[in-house]
């Protein structure tokens, strides 16, 4: 086919439309003339000849239309016509149009927002060179996979591996930019010398950290992220060469990372990168510590090397590497097994995720938002269906004028598409805002979440697909339905539409029933998440989280000698207690539900003590004011006091769970246990002096941990940091200046960070709160939409049956029986929807099991509550139109038509 000449012809035709039209007219006229003159020759009169020619030719317009549609430019043109016509129709019904677009924007926006998060968490590849070549390196033994490396282990792997093109390590850390006083955090990242090279990144300014920067004894060199450079330095090139102070130490800025690179841990972003060797500036033991697990390792594979080959190389080199860096603090069993670990690799083109915790909830929310969009689609479809009744005459007239059915369907679909495209466009705007709000919502003090939500092709493709599908979904049925009419009957109007009306009721009821079913599923899901969340928040955590201010204090910037730190912290504790408004105060190594924990295996003198893995005990060091401040009641024995000193006998207060686990049937007070010793040190006996009520250690969801509290005065090492728990009568903003002043009065260079115990507990429940809040919101929205659908459909049904009701009432039917008639219909639709909904819920909610707390995914009470709520609201939505129908004066109803 001579495609190009055709194309040229078509394009030419688009421009020379007028000329082509006149030519066509003339051509057809001359044809007609010739036919007529032929007839004339055969002896017809002139008039007869012309008439006969016309009859033979048929409708001139129809022929012209056929000719026009012979080239594809006709489609472009008719599409343009459709769009213009649709715009006119939509403008004519501005209110309806706005409602539909708004509904669609909400639905599509919610879906896009959640998808953009999923995209950022799991789908987007890193903005680095050939991201598909990146793998994460982890360690496996039997079925356990762990990803944290010690520095000696990393150095061994770096120097001895030959399976990868290159390897690199990194670790996320927070740096304090302030010099004493309130902490000013910057997100830091420790990187190995091969990090930027391995990722194939080019500096935006200056240079990046290279192998030469990461040598033992290095002075450190800082690389800023582009955003940080922009925010703090206004992209001033003079920043390079200046120095920046972290944790009270100056580092020279050598360069800036490229824009758009936020690090390779998804969910975080870095402000500044320092070479790993610079850790020694702060703590000179970490680089050689064989039990400090803090680094992540990734590598770039050689494209030509098959995966199986990499695996076998890793298996070969592993034993030698692991046996050279056995952790010194491990027990003999662990040490013996350490060389049996093997390096493994897994794909990391999308980076390493820190927000995996949110992947399942996001998928659940995606499904929920999808269902809401479906319900909204159904509403719009009913709306369109109802409107098509109003447009019946218009469509009939157009059909009579020669519009073909496909042409009409296409025009109606163009209207739907236009609506859904507008909805999708508005939805994208909404999603930009909602996505940012969602990220801000899941971001907490200890785990700030950062996600790159810039629009990429995947998000755009997703929204476009959803938009088109939505348009088709709510447009197809009404379009086909409303064009299937008998022209004559439609123009006449009246009773001959009986069959058509019945169909519309059936379709309408089916749509409403499926809306009821879907919204029931969403209500059940929302109910499950809400009840689970209520259980979590109303649960007794074992401590009173209300009105407790937490102050994290760090002495790193002070000139205090390590042996004087403990006394300084005691001093601070006393001064805080003296602040007006402070009811009590305590001090500890860590706070409850903070995510910071320490555990050890314990052996005890008890005959009933736990064995094996059950011997693991979680510890905290606390001052004597701690238990009082958190309102944790002592059940037996005594609190710590001034006699529990470094030199005195070692003592402990244990929780009820530990008492049960180790001293079943015995009085624990006075008994002793041993903490498994660090290598080389003798195990010291610890005497139990008290038993305290159970409280949660790591999270609200845990089965209470076996916990032992040790006096902070007997804490090994020179506590540089401490947590203060302060019970106050005033709010945090009201009291923090006074507390800050009290701490500064000991030493001005102490750095401080404030928050509250309540927000710390709240942060730990952010996932549950997110699910409860959003599923509740979507569930409510689904209910509202379904009820609007129900109300609309039954209102329509009632108006259509007005005459029938009039006859019934004229014949003596009571108001009640008319209402009953409509309600019976409502009940049938509702019953169908509820049965389908419950079945659907039973089939699908199983996946929610792991997200719930002390609640089965098929919890009967929740399902029952959802059914009751839905039925009650549905009956109301059905009752209103029924009442209105019954109120109508029979005479009025009968006179109509």
């Amino acid at each position, binding site marked *: 086919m001579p495609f190009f000449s055709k194309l040229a012809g078509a394009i030419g035709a688009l421009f020379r439309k007028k000329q082509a039209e006149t030519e066509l007219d003339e051509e057809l006229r*001359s044809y007609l003339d010739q036919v007529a003159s032929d007839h004339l020759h055969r002896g017809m009169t002139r008039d007869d000849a012309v008439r006969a020619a016309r009859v033979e030719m048929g409708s001139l317009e129809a022929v012209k239309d056929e000719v026009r549609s012979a*080239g594809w430019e006709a489609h472009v043109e008719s599409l343009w016509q459709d769009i213009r016509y649709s715009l006119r129709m939509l403008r004519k019904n501005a209110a309806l149009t706005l409602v539909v677009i708004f509904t669609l924007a909400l639905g599509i926006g919610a879906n896009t927002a959640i998808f953009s998060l999923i995209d950022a968490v799991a789908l987007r590849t890193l903005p680095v060179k050939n991201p598909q070549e990146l793998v994460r390196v982890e360690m496996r033994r039997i079925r356990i996979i762990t990803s944290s490396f010690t520095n000696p282990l990393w150095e061994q792997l770096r120097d001895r591996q030959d399976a990868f093109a290159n390897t690199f390590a990194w670790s996320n850390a927070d740096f304090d930019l302030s010099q004493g006083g309130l902490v000013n955090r910057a997100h830091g990242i420790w990187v190995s010398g091969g990090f930027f090279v391995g990722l194939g990144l080019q500096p935006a300014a200056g240079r990046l950290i290279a192998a030469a920067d990461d040598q033992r004894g290095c002075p450190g060199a800082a690389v800023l992220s582009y955003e940080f450079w922009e925010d703090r330095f206004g992209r001033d090139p003079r920043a390079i060469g200046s120095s920046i102070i972290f944790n009270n130490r100056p580092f020279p800025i050598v360069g800036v990372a490229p824009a758009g690179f936020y690090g390779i841990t998804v969910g975080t972003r870095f402000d500044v990168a320092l070479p790993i060797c610079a850790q020694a500036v702060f703590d000179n033991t970490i680089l050689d510590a064989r039990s400090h697990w803090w680094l992540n390792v990734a590598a770039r594979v050689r494209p030509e090397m098959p995966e199986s080959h990499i695996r076998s190389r890793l298996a070969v080199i592993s034993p030698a590497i692991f046996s050279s860096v056995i952790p010194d603090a491990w027990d003999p069993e662990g040490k013996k097994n350490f060389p049996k670990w093997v390096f493994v690799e897994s794909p990391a083109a999308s980076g390493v995720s820190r927000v995996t915790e949110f992947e399942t909830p996001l998928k659940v929310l995606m499904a929920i938002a999808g269902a809401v969009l479906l319900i909204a689609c159904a509403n719009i479809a009913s709306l369109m269906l109802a409107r098509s009744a109003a447009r019946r005459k218009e469509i009939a007239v157009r059909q009579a004028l020669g519009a073909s059915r496909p042409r009409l369907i296409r025009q109606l679909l163009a209207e739907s598409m236009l609506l859904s495209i507008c909805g999708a466009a508005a939805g994208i705007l909404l999603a930009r805002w909602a996505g940012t709000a969602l990220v801000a919502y899941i971001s907490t003090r200890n785990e700030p979440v950062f996600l790159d939500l810039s629009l990429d092709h995947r998000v755009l493709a997703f929204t476009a697909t959803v938009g088109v599908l939505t348009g088709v979904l709510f447009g197809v049925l009404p379009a086909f339905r409303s064009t299937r009419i008998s022209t004559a009957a439609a123009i006449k109007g009246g009773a001959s539409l009986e069959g058509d009306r019945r169909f519309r009721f059936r379709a309408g009821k089916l749509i409403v029933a499926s809306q009821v079913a879907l919204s029931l599923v969403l209500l059940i899901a929302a109910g499950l998440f809400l009840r689970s969340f209520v259980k979590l928040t109303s649960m007794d955590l074992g401590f009173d989280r209300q009105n407790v201010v937490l102050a994290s204090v760090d002495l790193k910037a002070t000139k205090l000698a390590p042996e004087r730190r403990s006394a300084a912290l005691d001093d601070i504790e006393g001064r805080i207690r003296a602040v007006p408004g402070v009811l009590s105060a305590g001090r500890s190594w860590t706070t409850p539900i903070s995510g910071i924990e320490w555990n050890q295996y314990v052996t005890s003198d008890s005959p009933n003590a736990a064995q094996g893995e059950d011997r693991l005990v979680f510890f905290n060091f606390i001052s004597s004011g701690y238990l009082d401040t958190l309102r944790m009641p002592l059940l037996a024995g005594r609190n710590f006091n001034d006699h529990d000193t470094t030199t005195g006998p070692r003592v402990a207060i244990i929780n009820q769970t530990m008492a049960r686990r180790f001293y079943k049937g015995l009085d624990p007070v006075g008994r002793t246990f041993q903490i498994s010793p660090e290598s080389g040190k003798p195990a010291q006996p610890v005497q139990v002096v008290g038993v305290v009520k159970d409280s949660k250690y790591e999270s609200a969801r845990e089965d209470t941990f076996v916990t032992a509290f040790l006096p902070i005065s007997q804490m090994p090492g020179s506590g540089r940091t401490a947590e203060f728990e302060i019970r106050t009568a005033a709010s945090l903003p009201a009291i923090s200046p006074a507390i800050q002043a009290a701490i500064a009065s000991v030493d001005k260079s102490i750095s401080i960070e404030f928050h509250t115990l309540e927000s710390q507990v709240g942060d730990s429940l952010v996932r549950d709160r997110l699910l409860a809040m959003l599923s509740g919101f979507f569930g409510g929205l689904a209910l509202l939409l379904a009820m609007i659908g129900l109300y609309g459909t039954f209102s329509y049904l009632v108006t259509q049956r007005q005459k029938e009701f009039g006859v019934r009432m004229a014949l003596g039917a009571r108001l009640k029986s008319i209402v009953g008639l409509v309600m019976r219909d409502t009940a049938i639709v509702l019953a169908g929807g509820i049965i389908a909904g419950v079945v659907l819920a039973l089939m699908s909610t199983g996946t929610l099991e792991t997200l719930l707390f002390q609640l089965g995914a098929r919890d009967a009470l929740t399902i029952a509550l959802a059914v009751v709520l839905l039925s009650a609201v549905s009956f109301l939505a059905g009752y209103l139109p029924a009442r209105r129908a019954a109120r109508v004066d029979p005479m009025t109803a009968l006179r109509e038509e």
Partner: protein
Amino acid sequence: MADLVQGTLDMLILKTLALEPLHGYGIAMRIEQTSNGVFRVNPGSLFPAFRRLERSGWIKPEWRPTENNRRAKFYALTERGRKQLKAETAEWSRQIAAIASILETS
């Protein structure tokens, strides 16, 4: 009178034009005459076919006076059209032969 076999109208038009350029009515009459009145082409299919063939570059239009001195649009076969006719005729003969042999054997 009979309907045309699907897709053969284009070929018949080309064949008709192979002798000399003709206007629309002339083509319709010529097809009717040469088929001994078996095929009557109605304008609703004739004119779209002209548009199609013209688009493909197989025929070329030209306004000329008719035998009784009226202006009419004449169509002439182009070089490409001639090739196309040849190809279509060959294909048609092949198919006819095939159909005939099937009909004979059964």
